[in-house]
């Protein structure tokens, strides 16, 4: 046990009060503030998603008109991507756990960490600002991809949202920068690169992408704003611009950003599996290096978003080949996770349930990516519901399930209280059922050629849409159950010990909730964080 504190131990949550939260530079509090902000936006975007699904319940327009449907699917996309899932795991669990896992007192630049949180809030405010104004003038209806030339001559609030996304880009770059410097320079003595937890490896590769991809979308959105304000002719065809160039620049950022979303989720799963199967992770270096490999390869593959936009023959040929290069490291990770359970002693608590659910859903997501990478089939599946199902399996089935699993796993560490295990399991199965009921029919809709972003559809697609919309309602209820359980546990849960799941990782060696300066004195790390087999002799 670390030497007793000079003054008695007080968790990081005291002292409270607005001043101490508004000006805090403690990475744990900033992690919590991010958590509250992104869950708030998750609920808003989720409601928008449910409105979209409610509208698709039956052919014909029941609840909203065409413009309303376009507004809500745009809001669902924009808020989910820029405000919830890009900050997502790195900003919440990443901020909270990175210094704890590598044995540091705080991130490299604490003030910059606080600055990037308030830049995030400013960006979120500017995005929400676009909703102020007349219904058919201000509410953005261009889809979260802002494709020109529609986003140039659309009368709706493109400028506030793109400006907000530009500002959020800064917050994401600064967080990435903070994490990379922290991992490079502030690891505890003895914590070599190959003794770091795999969550830190995945945060490192996600931060690399955040740093290197975000500036390109920053300049693209800036050019879009300039084009709308000053009529500078980069993207609009009348002024000699090329709308496909916008697509190229947008997806040069937006494909790496989907790997920012999924890599930390893979890191969380790689943390949960060894703890609940009491066995060392299988192929530590394979998983660590495939995280970095995905981060590097993710910059070469954006062309598959433009397969049908009139690209040249050889351009499609090469981008299809490169897109398959991303499938290999992902496959290696999945195999290594499954091998981790071999000859372990598996305890199916709720975090483990989420981790196995992640593997199940993510294997569907990964495998349905193959027809989208193959040119022959992608020409048919492009911009149909097959793509919608594919990326929801990756984002919701992957990232959100891993985020919720991670929250369950580290909740005792964050708040020092345990959640109700039964409700958590019920919540998982409700989510699993609702999610599959929503998105499995969409694959078949994609086969039939039902295009994306359609407010109304022809009669032959009606029954699958009906089933999918019902599933979406169950999906929504599941989140209410899960988040309610966690929030209740944060206040009234029974006290959790220092290490309820007796994990060997560094963050479980300090009392929970951890004191302000994490470690009394920086620990020297001598063993590997997954040495489960050896100790118990």
């Amino acid at each position, binding site marked *: 046990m670390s030497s007793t504190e000079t003054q008695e131990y007080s968790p*990081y949550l005291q*002292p409270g009060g607005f*001043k*101490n939260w508004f*000006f*805090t*530079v*403690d990475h744990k*509090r900033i992690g919590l503030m991010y958590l509250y902000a992104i869950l708030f936006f998750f609920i808003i975007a989720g409601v928008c998603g449910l409105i979209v699904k409610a509208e698709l319940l039956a052919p014909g327009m029941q609840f909203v008109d065409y413009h309303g449907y376009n507004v809500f699917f745009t809001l669902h996309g924009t808020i989910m991507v820029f405000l919830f899932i890009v900050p997502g795991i790195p900003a919440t669990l990443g901020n909270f756990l990175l210094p704890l896992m590598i044995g540091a*007192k*705080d991130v*490299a*630049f*604490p*003030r*910059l960490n*606080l600055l990037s949180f308030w830049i995030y809030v400013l960006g979120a405010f500017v995005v929400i600002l676009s909703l102020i104004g007349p219904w058919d003038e201000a509410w953005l209806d261009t889809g979260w991809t802002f494709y020109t030339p529609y986003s140039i001559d659309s009368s709706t609030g493109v400028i506030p949202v793109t400006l907000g996304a530009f500002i959020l880009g800064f917050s994401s*770059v600064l967080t990435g*920068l*903070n994490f*990379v*410097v922290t991992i*490079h*320079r*502030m690891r505890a003595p003895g914590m070599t690169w190959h003794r770091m937890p795999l969550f830190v490896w995945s945060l490192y590769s996600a931060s690399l992408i955040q*740093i*290197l991809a*975000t*500036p*390109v979308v*920053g*300049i*693209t959105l*800036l*050019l879009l704003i*300039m084009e709308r*304000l*000053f*009529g*500078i*002719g*980069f993207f609009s065809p009348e*002024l*000699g*611009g*090329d709308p496909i*160039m916008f697509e190229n*620049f947008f997806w040069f950022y937006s494909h790496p950003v989907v790997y920012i979303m999924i890599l930390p989720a893979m890191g969380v799963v790689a943390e949960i599996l060894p703890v609940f199967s009491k066995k060392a992770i299988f192929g530590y270096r394979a998983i660590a290096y495939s995280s970095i490999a995905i981060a590097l390869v993710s910059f070469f593959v954006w062309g598959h978003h433009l397969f049908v936009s009139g690209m040249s023959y050889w351009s499609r040929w090469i981008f299809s080949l490169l897109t398959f290069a991303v499938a290999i490291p992902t496959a290696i990770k999945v195999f290594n996770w499954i091998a981790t359970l071999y000859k372990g002693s598996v305890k199916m608590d709720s975090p483990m349930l989420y981790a196995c659910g992640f593997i199940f859903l993510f294997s569907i997501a990964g495998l349905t990516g193959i027809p989208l990478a193959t040119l022959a089939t992608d020409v048919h599946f492009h911009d149909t519901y097959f793509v919608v199902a594919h990326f929801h399996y990756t984002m919701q089935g992957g990232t959100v399930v891993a985020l919720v699993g991670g929250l369950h796993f580290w909740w005792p560490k964050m708040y020092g209280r345990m959640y109700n295990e039964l409700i958590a399991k019920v919540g998982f199965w409700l989510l699993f059922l609702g999610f599959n009921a929503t998105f499995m029919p969409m694959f078949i809709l994609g086969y039939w050629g039902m295009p994306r972003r359609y407010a109304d559809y022809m009669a032959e697609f009606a029954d699958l849409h009906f089933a999918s919309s019902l599933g979406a309602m169950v999906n929504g209820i599941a989140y209410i159950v899960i988040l309610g359980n966690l929030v209740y546990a944060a206040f009234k849960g029974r006290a959790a010990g220092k290490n309820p799941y007796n994990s060997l990782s560094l963050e479980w060696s300090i009392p929970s909730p951890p004191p*302000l*300066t994490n470690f009394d004195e920086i620990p020297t790390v001598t063993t590997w964080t997954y040495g489960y087999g050896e100790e118990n002799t």
Partner: protein
Amino acid sequence: MANHSNWAPGTFFHLHEEDPVEEYENFKLGMWIFLATEVLLFGGLFAVYFVMKWRYPDLFLAGAAQLNALLGTGNTLVLLCSSFTMALAVDAAQRGQQKKLVWNLVLTLAFGTVFLIIKFFEWKAKIGHGWFPGLNLDIFFSIYFMTTGLHLLHVLVGMSFIGLLLYRAVVHKRYHEENFGGVEIGGLYWHLVDVIWIFLFPLLYLI
């Protein structure tokens, strides 16, 4: 900024202390990474430049002919000198020579303002011809105003950064052998601004 005692620990004004050499190395690595993002920001613009040059080659030749290469070369030389004096300023801070540090910072700011003045005349000439963003400009001048405008913004940010360093060096006498990190960071940023102009000058003015 001194740690005000009445703030609770772990807040903006009451940080835990870090070993100065450690902090210096962190600061420098962080700055280099930030420079990488700036390079990619301008990289996106240069990519637009190359694509549009491919699509409208003679439009760009005509546009470049329209620009005043002499002013461009002048600007390049001015920025190179400002980079030189900035490097000397960092060198002076490392050696702890206060007077040389202050003089070099002042010289860098002077070269910066000369750059701004030349840029002002150039833009005034362009606007005189009626090519100003907002008049449905053609591609070349859109790119011209976009790149030089963004670069100008970075020059202004860099100069205010150096102004802050000057204020701290003169009033607080903060920079000496043991604590010159701030000057080095300012220098890195200013050199980046110069490097971007080095790439921008031939592409826009000469070819």
